[in-house]
């Protein structure tokens, strides 16, 4: 185990930034989100949950895909992909790290999403263990240990030090890069923190959610469940849950007219929106109940049935915190998940 004194962290960021990009939780106008680090920005590793998850590092909210350049009647297609500079994603929590695994299964499966792939490969991920989980957290339900996340390197934070440990070659390389800032030590402190946090995690109100009924064989029964109406009745149809979700991966492709052509870009889409999956004939889901059901059926039934039982929810609890009307996946799990919930 290695450790870095907290006061040296800013210098450490600067060091990383010399040769790689650094993506890190930064406080801006009162809220913490991942941003490209720059001298003077207010880094906030202590923040348990960034508003947006770090997924937009690999899957940005908007991304140009190609450009159609026109001159008179001539048209040319321009590839706008640029070579991805290596960068470090710093401070990823266990749930968000697990979410990257969920995204990988979508974007890196055949056909590979080369935009995603390029970014993914260029990244070194440094995770950060949680020490102060809150009431909306339920990563444990999905078998995630918030106290020892994986990644290329894992880190722990306490009042005085950031403790770090490499897990992969990329992680080793990063530590080599910052070796001037690190010193040996911290095994005991990390262990103590992990034990303390584990105790809290057990006490969390959602620690015992029962997912047992979310199985492919129950698909039809779950789909037809009468409770969806009531569960979704207050849904505004906004995209907050999907946009703060670390595993939501849907996007739309749109064109933007420029002075000399058209930019084709993709942007996050939300299954909560009325034009999601809108086709020439109309939309297969016409009510908010259907859209609402789609989101949770996908997270808890469709996705796992195609990915060896891996749920596409990681229990980060962002939707629990952020839904304007306090609807969320926990209510769905409690209502439809299994007997233990009753």
């Amino acid at each position, binding site marked *: 185990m290695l450790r870095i004194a907290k006061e040296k962290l800013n210098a450490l960021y600067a060091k990383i930034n010399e040769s790689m990009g650094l993506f890190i939780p930064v406080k801006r106008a009162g809220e913490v989100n991942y941003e490209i680090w720059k001298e003077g920005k207010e880094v906030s590793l202590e923040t348990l949950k960034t508003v947006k998850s770090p997924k937009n590092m690999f899957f940005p909210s908007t991304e140009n895909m190609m*450009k159609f*350049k026109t001159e008179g009647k001539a048209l040319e297609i*321009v590839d706008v992909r640029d070579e991805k500079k290596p960068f470090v994603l710093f401070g990823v929590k266990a749930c968000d790290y697990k979410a990257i695994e969920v995204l990988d299964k979508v974007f890196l499966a055949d056909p590979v999403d080369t935009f995603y792939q390029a970014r993914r490969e260029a990244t070194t991920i440094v995770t950060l263990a949680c020490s102060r989980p809150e009431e909306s957290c339920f990563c444990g339900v999905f078998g995630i240990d918030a106290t020892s996340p994986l990644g290329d390197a894992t880190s722990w934070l306490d009042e005085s030090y950031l403790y770090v440990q490499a897990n992969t070659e990329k992680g080793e390389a990063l530590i080599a890069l910052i070796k001037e800032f690190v010193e040996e030590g911290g095994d005991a402190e990390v262990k103590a923190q992990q034990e303390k946090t584990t105790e809290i995690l057990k006490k969390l109100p959602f620690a015992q959610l029962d997912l047992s009924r979310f199985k492919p064989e129950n698909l039809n029964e779950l789909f037809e469940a009468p409770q969806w109406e009531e569960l979704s009745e207050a849904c505004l149809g906004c995209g907050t849950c999907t946009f703060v979700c670390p595993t939501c991966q849907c996007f739309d492709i749109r064109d*933007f*007219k*420029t*002075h*000399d*052509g058209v*930019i084709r870009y993709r942007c996050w889409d939300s299954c909560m929106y009325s034009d999601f999956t809108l086709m020439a004939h109309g939309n297969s889901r016409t009510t908010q109940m259907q859209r609402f059901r789609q989101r949770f059926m996908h997270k808890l039934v469709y996705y796992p049935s195609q990915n060896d039982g891996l749920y596409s929810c990681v229990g980060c609890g962002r939707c629990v915190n952020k839904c304007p009307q306090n609807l969320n996946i926990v209510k769905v799990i409690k209502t439809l998940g299994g007997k233990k919930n009753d």
Partner: protein
Amino acid sequence: MQEVTEKKEFTPNIVAFCCNWCSYAGADLAGSSRLTYPANVKIIRVPCSCRVNPTFVLKAFQQGADGVILCGCHPGDCHYVTGNYYTRRRMALLFSFLNYMGIEKERTRVEWVSAAEGAKFSEVMNDFVKTVTALGENKRLTDLRVKEGK
């Protein structure tokens, strides 16, 4: 020194919305009286100033316009009786709001120009171009993508 020459080279792009009955005719009169104003002012004909949706103003800025001016009949003289009264409220609120968002107030303007005021039309345009030129490029309300690849 260099900065000064750069500023001189800047010619703003101005979009002028003119109502068909007064201001467009006023611009025609400016033309037939050979009253000049800069070529970077381009006019869009609308039936009445009240046809101008704030969206059009924003669209112009998005597309890189440096100034947007609306011209209509004098209040009380609207061909459609009350159209420009609505324009007056809408634009007063919109411009005040844009300024509140930090957009330079000099980039937006409403002027009442009658069909007989060719001279006024030319004066207004000259003055507006001068004001916007001094202000420089519209950076706060342009969609940078439109210039991509340039």
